[in-house]
């Protein structure tokens, strides 16, 4: 079986909202959902929304189904864009490091529930954003394209 390569199209709004959330969260991790759609072999990340985790620490953030689903539905209603839906997760690392093994395990696990690949974005302390793509339980290679806001 060949492992398909996935393109990731990141709108500027996604990076800027994640960076802003990271700054606001200070030394604690925060995270949330990526909203977008799948388009011709690409994952398009259009918006990032924050989902609060009251138990977040300096080294962990957890996506809770109930809170996350509520946040997703609220955002889909507010944004009222016909193509939007859940396409992955994001969270911040107060340290200067990219996705951990735990991070990859979690997105791989989540990806088993979807036909299309999921995207994980990790914001590092140096304002870099690293990406992983998981599809049906496997990490896939990816190419990142950034769109500037118009």
């Amino acid at each position, binding site marked *: 079986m060949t492992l398909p390569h996935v393109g990731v199209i990141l709108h500027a709004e996604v990076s800027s909202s994640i960076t802003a959330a990271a700054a606001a969260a200070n030394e604690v*991790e925060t*995270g949330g*959902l990526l*909203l*977008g*759609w*799948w*388009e*011709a072999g690409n994952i398009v990340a259009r918006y990032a929304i924050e989902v609060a985790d009251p138990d977040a620490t300096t*080294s*962990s*953030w*957890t*996506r*809770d*189904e109930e809170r*996350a*689903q509520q946040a*997703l539905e609220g955002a*889909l209603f507010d944004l009222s864009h*016909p*193509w*939007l*839906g*859940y*396409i992955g*997760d994001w*969270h911040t690392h107060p340290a200067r490091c990219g996705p*951990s093994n*735990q*991070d990859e395990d*979690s*997105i791989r*696990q*989540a990806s088993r*529930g*979807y036909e*299309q690949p999921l995207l*994980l974005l*990790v914001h590092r302390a140096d304002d870099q954003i690293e990406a992983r793509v998981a599809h049906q339980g496997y990490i896939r290679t990816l190419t990142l394209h950034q769109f500037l806001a118009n």
Partner: protein
Amino acid sequence: MMATLATQFREALSAIEPGDDAKHAQDAHKQVSKVLEADEKLRKLGVAPLLIGSYKRHVSIRRVKDVDVFARLTEADSSLRPGAILDHVTEVLDKAFPGCVERQHRSVKVDFPDYDLSVDVVIARPCGDHWEIPQKIEADGRASWVETNPTKMTELTTEANKQFLLYDDDEDSGVYVPVVKLVRQVRRTWVDDQRGGYYFEVLTYHAFQDKQLNEKTIAAYLTLVLRWIADTLPELVDDGPADPTLPDKTIKTKATVDQIKAAADRFAEAAELAEEALAEEDSCRAAVMWRNLLGVTKNTEQSEYVFPLPDYCNADGTTKYSSTLMKGAPAVPAGRGRYA
């Protein structure tokens, strides 16, 4: 706003194009003509075979099962006995196509099993400006003759297709011919697929002339024509529609009054479905209605839907987000996902 689905209609039209049948029909016609023209006796009668019928008018649809050849006997006079001539034609053709020729009531049928189609040879004699074909042949070979003008319908079809244009500035954008084909397909689907397509072709002709249709899409033309036929057919049960090729004549059909009434009911249903489809704003729901209206191809090895659904539609008329673009998921993953 209506879902007009013009690209789908274009594909539907190409799905009912005769395709290979066209080549086969051409070839079968040629073979039969050659045999007739080679016969001494027929040559003396001035035989001049002519392709007529829906195939000639470019309004035939897949599958073309029969092709009509009009065997004009230009030198024939009133002494001609059609029974004897048909016997002779049968004999001549049987020599050339052994076992494939059948003498019919008013014509001779030649089967082309390889092509899965047959050629019907009708003999005709001149009568002033017109032609006559035998109406009823008695046992002694004598017959009463009836006036006919099969080439006139070809001319009228060409004219109508130039008169009714999708784009006023484009002579090649005729809508009459495509709409006739779609009406024939609707008839095959909703009434039956026996002979009788000509009857509805003539009705379509009248619908265009009566309403002087001028629409933006094939969907709209088809809907209005179906409505006109549905409304008019009950009035024609007894006499049939006027024959556009001969003044003061009407088109006769072998169908019984009950059959025509039943056909009228079916066309009323079809027209209603078309109107509903045309008014539908959701293009997938509209596409499924058009698909039901136009049914499947007839007499093909595999019957295929004539009207293709757009890629982004499910068969039940719901919309799937197309293969190139898929909406993000409506739900987050179950349970908890911990990131460290």
